[in-house]
């Protein structure tokens, strides 16, 4: 079994204690995760500065601002600077995304993350556990069904962020893409909403990292998850 081959027992020769560890995150995935964390931060920050230049999705005349996003929470300082950040990091963001997707598909590692039909039945028990103090369902693999749902969704959001971004950047050369989104004007709105959906994921993701402890965090750095609860003792 693939899972067993990645599981090892760590022996402490002094105390004779044995802990389990599973190699959960291959190098490419870890690299993509952290590069993406940086580029998402830059893309959102510079995107918000770009948005500040016209903080509306309506007409220019008369202009009704949606919100006044503070400059201190944006990257680039001015529209031109923000565009430089955005148009530079979009290639890093896109490259990381393609590397990630390619690696997941060709290595078969996607099975760990992809939410499939047999995960559906496990969603509600997890929701009950997290939000309504229900019992914790037993974990049989690296991610629980709700986690898989979140990770699969955010990958789809990633694809959407690139697609909506290209529709805003090149509404004529990619006219079919812009057309699918209701034209340039609405593509800009979808791009904006996709960002907020991704930021909502990031917020939840960070909360869960804090709640679920050090071993979980370290696993995204070294690949190895110590003492995973789903490995039989």
């Amino acid at each position, binding site marked *: 079994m693939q899972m067993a081959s990645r599981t090892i027992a760590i022996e402490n020769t002094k105390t004779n204690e044995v802990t389990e560890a599973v190699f959960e995150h291959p190098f490419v995935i870890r*690299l993509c995760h952290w590069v993406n964390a940086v580029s998402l931060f830059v893309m959102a920050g510079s995107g918000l500065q770009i948005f500040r230049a016209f903080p509306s999705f309506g007409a220019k005349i008369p202009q009704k601002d949606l919100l006044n996003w503070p400059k201190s929470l944006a990257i680039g300082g001015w529209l*031109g600077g923000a565009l430089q950040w955005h148009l530079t990091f979009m290639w890093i963001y896109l490259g990381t995304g393609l590397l990630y997707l390619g690696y997941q598909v060709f290595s078969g590692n996607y099975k760990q993350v992809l939410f499939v039909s047999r995960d559906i039945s496990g969603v509600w028990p997890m929701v009950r556990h997290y939000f309504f103090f229900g019992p914790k369902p037993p974990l049989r693999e690296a991610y629980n069904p709700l986690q898989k749902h979140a990770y699969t969704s955010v990958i789809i959001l990633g694809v959407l962020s690139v697609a909506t971004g290209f529709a805003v950047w090149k509404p004529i050369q990619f006219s079919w893409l812009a057309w699918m989104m209701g034209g340039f004007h609405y593509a800009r709105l979808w791009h904006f909403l996709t960002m907020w959906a991704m930021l909502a994921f990031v917020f939840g993701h960070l909360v869960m990292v804090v709640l679920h402890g050090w071993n979980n965090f370290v696993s995204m750095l070294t690949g190895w998850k110590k003492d995973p609860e789903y490995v039989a003792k």
Partner: protein
Amino acid sequence: MKARIDKTKFKSTSRRELLKLTPMIALGAFAIPGLQESLLKTGLGFSDWASKLLFRSGHLATTFADSELTPFSKFPINDYDVDDPGVDFDRWTLTVAGSVQKPGDYTVAQIQALPRFRQNTRHVCVEGWDVIGRFGGARLSDFLKAIGADLSARYVYVECADDYYESLDMATALHPQTLLCYEMYDQPLTREHGAPLRLSIPTKVGYKQAKYLTDLKVTSILDRAGYWEDQGYSKFYGL
């Protein structure tokens, strides 16, 4: 059967896996003030290079029905300085120079003698807003042919009555929807919209569509790329 390893060995294995991530430190170069500017300039340059590859000369911008037009009164007047630089229409000419067979001063009448095209196209501002306007004028490509321009030159460079200046890659200059515009909404161009002559380039973002033109030069070497470009905007910004 699970592999068993010693705790110390596990530590060194983990450390090696962690160290594999060190190339990520390269991203930190973006935080170094001395490097940041040139890295971002390179990034923007790469985007412009990709934009040139993505540009298709035969691909037309979407045109719209008259019913979809933004009313003329709601078409924004955007300039970097003054709405009306006070062009003297009686004395106005477009001064043509550079790699052309027929340099010199061209009048509005000479430009209006070329076939007129009218199109309802979307005007997209770099800030993010967009309007659909009706523009009329001569194809820049027709004018370039009329003045005997070297079409293998790389750029068309323009200067304006308000000291604004812009440059256009030749492929976009030759695009059939790129107009030397003297009409908006079937009326002569008003002063605040760039009378007597402006550029209308539906495949470009707004700041490339210079108003109040006074000079046009065909060249392969640019001393200046454009008013905004020289402050850090994209030189190509094609849509």
